[in-house]
């Protein structure tokens, strides 16, 4: 599959989704389907889908304890064990997983191999992917948390605090959220990286471009509503509260930009459990990371273990008895 095909098909789908809202809401006046039905369906698919996927994973057992050790094991007391990279107890595992999930520890190791004349291979530090990934995910989280103000009767202190922090520099009116800029920049970087690096272009599927375009679309419509087309915030809150309280209403005057935003978010939610975005849940279950390197200290049990055909010592001695006797090796049966 060519990169052009992958990119254009994903882009066409996302643009098509936007057009659908333009026609549906802007022309046909389908506010209720787009404002209420679609978000509800999306949420159900999201939660049911995620639960289904995680349960499916969990139903497959972990027959062997196979952590990837990235540091010194625990052996002699006089050799310093690395409990975060080669955990030997639950604290170590929790620490390792926390570093992985909160700070993308493994991606931080990233290097770039380069072949120079000589031939000489050099490995340069390459933290850009780590940085963009971290900025993207943390911004996304903060933005989701910020949106809680629409779904809660009164904003809890910590949500307000996040908002205040996020608009710390008070650039412009309304104050620019740092995460808005950060997420758009990070997603753009992640997209360009896929397109520009030949190997990345070669391995990328529509399933890699589609969520990027989708998130980019969500980000852009969000920014437009805040800084350009100025959505009626009270109206948004009314709609959001209606959805949350299961008494949906459609307030007047919410522009089509808002409905595009909401629709893209709904698509993202519904797409989530069907896609690679499930890495969010999967990372917690990865057996090379979430198991302690204690294989020799405690026995791991394989639930589907079964007996296998072996060559027993008795059979072995039967095969070689004469030769063993001649060589003076001790025998069980003379």
């Amino acid at each position, binding site marked *: 599959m060519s990169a052009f095909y992958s990119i254009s098909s994903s882009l066409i789908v996302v643009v098509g989704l936007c057009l659908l809202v333009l026609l549906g809401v802007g022309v046909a006046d389908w506010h209720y389907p787009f404002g209420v039905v679609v978000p509800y369906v999306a949420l159900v698919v999201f939660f049911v889908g995620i639960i289904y996927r995680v349960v499916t994973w969990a139903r497959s057992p972990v027959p062997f304890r196979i952590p990837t050790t990235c540091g010194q094991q625990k052996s*002699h007391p006089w050799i310093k064990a690395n409990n975060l990279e*080669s955990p030997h107890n639950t604290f170590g595992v929790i620490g390792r997983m926390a570093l992985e999930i909160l700070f993308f520890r493994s991606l931080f190791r990233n290097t770039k191999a380069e*072949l120079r004349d000589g031939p000489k291979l050099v490995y340069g530090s390459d933290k850009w992917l780590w940085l963009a990934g971290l900025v993207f995910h943390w911004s996304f989280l903060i933005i989701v948390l910020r949106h809680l103000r629409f779904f809660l009767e009164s904003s809890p202190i910590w949500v307000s605090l996040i908002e205040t922090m996020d608009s710390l520099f008070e650039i412009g009116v309304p104050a620019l959220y740092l995460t808005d800029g950060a997420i758009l920049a990070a997603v753009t970087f992640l997209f360009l990286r896929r397109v520009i690096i030949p190997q990345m272009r070669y391995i990328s599927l529509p399933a890699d471009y589609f969520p990027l375009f989708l998130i980019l679309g969500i980000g852009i419509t969000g920014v437009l509503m805040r800084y350009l087309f100025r959505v009626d915030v009270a109206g948004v809150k009314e709609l959001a509260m209606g959805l949350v309280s299961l008494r949906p209403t459609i307030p007047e005057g919410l522009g089509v930009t808002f409905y595009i935003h909401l629709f893209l978010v709904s698509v993202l939610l519904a797409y989530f459990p069907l896609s690679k975005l499930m890495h969010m849940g999967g990372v917690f279950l990865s057996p090379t990371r979430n198991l302690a390197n204690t294989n020799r200290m405690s026995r791991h049990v394989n639930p589907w273990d079964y007996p296998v055909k072996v060559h027993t010592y008795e059979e072995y001695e039967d095969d070689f008895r004469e030769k063993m006797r001649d060589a003076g090796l001790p025998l069980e049966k003379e």
Partner: protein
Amino acid sequence: MSDIPEGTPKPEELATIGYEPPQQGWMDTPAGFKKGTWSYSAKRKFMEHLGLPNPRDWSPSDEDWKLPENWKEIILEGLRDRLDKFRSLRLFMDICVRCGACADKCHFFIGSGDPKNMPVLRAELLRSVYRNDFTTAGKILGSLGGARELTVDVLKEWFYYFYQCTECRRCSVYCPYGIDTAEITMLARELLNLVGLNIGWTIEPCSNCFRTGNHLGVQPHGFKDSIEFAVDDLEELTGIRVEAPINKKGAEILFITPSADYFASPHYYTLLGYLALFHEIGLDYTWSTYASEGGNFGLFTSHEMIKRLNAKMYAEAKRLGVKWILGGECGHMWRVVHQYMNTMNGPADFLEEPVSPITGTKFENTTSLKMVHIMEFTSDLIRNNKLKLDPSRNDHWRATFHDSCNPSRAMGLIEEPRYVINKVANNFHEMPENTIKEHTFCCGSGAGLGNDENMEMRLRGGFPRANAVKYVHDKHDVNLLLCICAIDKATLPPLVEYWVPGVEVGGIHELVGNALIMKGEKERTTDMRGEPLKGKEDKGDV
């Protein structure tokens, strides 16, 4: 005599690597099967001996691979079965985001530039079929969803690329989700095995090991001869005749090491080191002819084969009535011992928690498995001043250390070998940090790929390792590449001969043997190889 087959491209040619992927998409590009980059098929008799499916005479270069009629059904059913049995597989099929962090971490990609050697794409070869037959999105979207149908060409591609992975786990160190290509390769090879697509270099050792106890097919009397030969050699070198008990019931410790140690060079010098060490500390131990192999090529075949071959270790320990097991220098052996043995063939409740009879140290990290790595054992001896060492007897060596994939990334055995090296030798230089410890590069020949017909791919895969050796060879005049793996000892010599002439390969216990001052020994003029020691060049026999 050169180990490099004729017709192998020159280093300058091989080092001209194009990293630009082809225009055509990977799903539509079939595997090339270029001479020198794949392994011969498994012979019928070894397949039959092990009772493996579809034994027949065939070659990967044939058009017709003589697959069973319902091969596709077998593979898909096998995949379904494994998805239900291995959470790792299901998860690794689902969560890759294709971020590409793994791409240039694979030694085969660095050395070949072939995009399907990027771990992400190697896994996609299987993942695309998984999506097609096991996921809703794949079924609906088809190729748009990254799915493709399993065809004979896809199967051939699997065979080519899953036998171009050495299961070294380097990519899994860098993956943000810990996706382990070794796991994917192991399971993909299991699928291939279901329809009789095995390579000779894994199945013949498996068959030999099953029958005679070791990969090389050495029978009990031959084993005894080899050990006695080594005892004679050691006597000649040191003036001391050591005991080497075999199949001795009631010994305290059973010692198991790869068969190459007593049958191949330079492994053999490490064997001499073991014999000298065990004599000097008065260890009550025994060799076994039945468990005469530490390695386990089951790891490169199937989980079932791992278990079948590994069963001997505990069975023999039980039969001989030893207290615990000591394991020699080996890489994949220790992956199996450390991560699989206890689960597969334990619990070893008939053994005792290992305690060093010399130092009294209790090996707290192996109280359940009851098997100790020789580096843990020897480092403890040295730490407790139980050995008299003269490191200057290794002054003719300027050493570096290659962390073998499995001890570093599946065990975390990193500092123990370094401690020992620093105590037995005066000249030790580390390779660059991105190429050692958990970042270590594979020899390029592990996982059953160390055969001669695959030499070009081995040299390509070993290029990053060799290049790091070249760095310390040029900078510090390093002339010895140490390692603690039998496959390394077998395959690094041609690799360095090709890329870094002037470097030898050896094991750590070879240097221990050189440095070890034995009670009553004659004046040593040579090392374990019979090469004159530094400053003793004139005194040796000419």
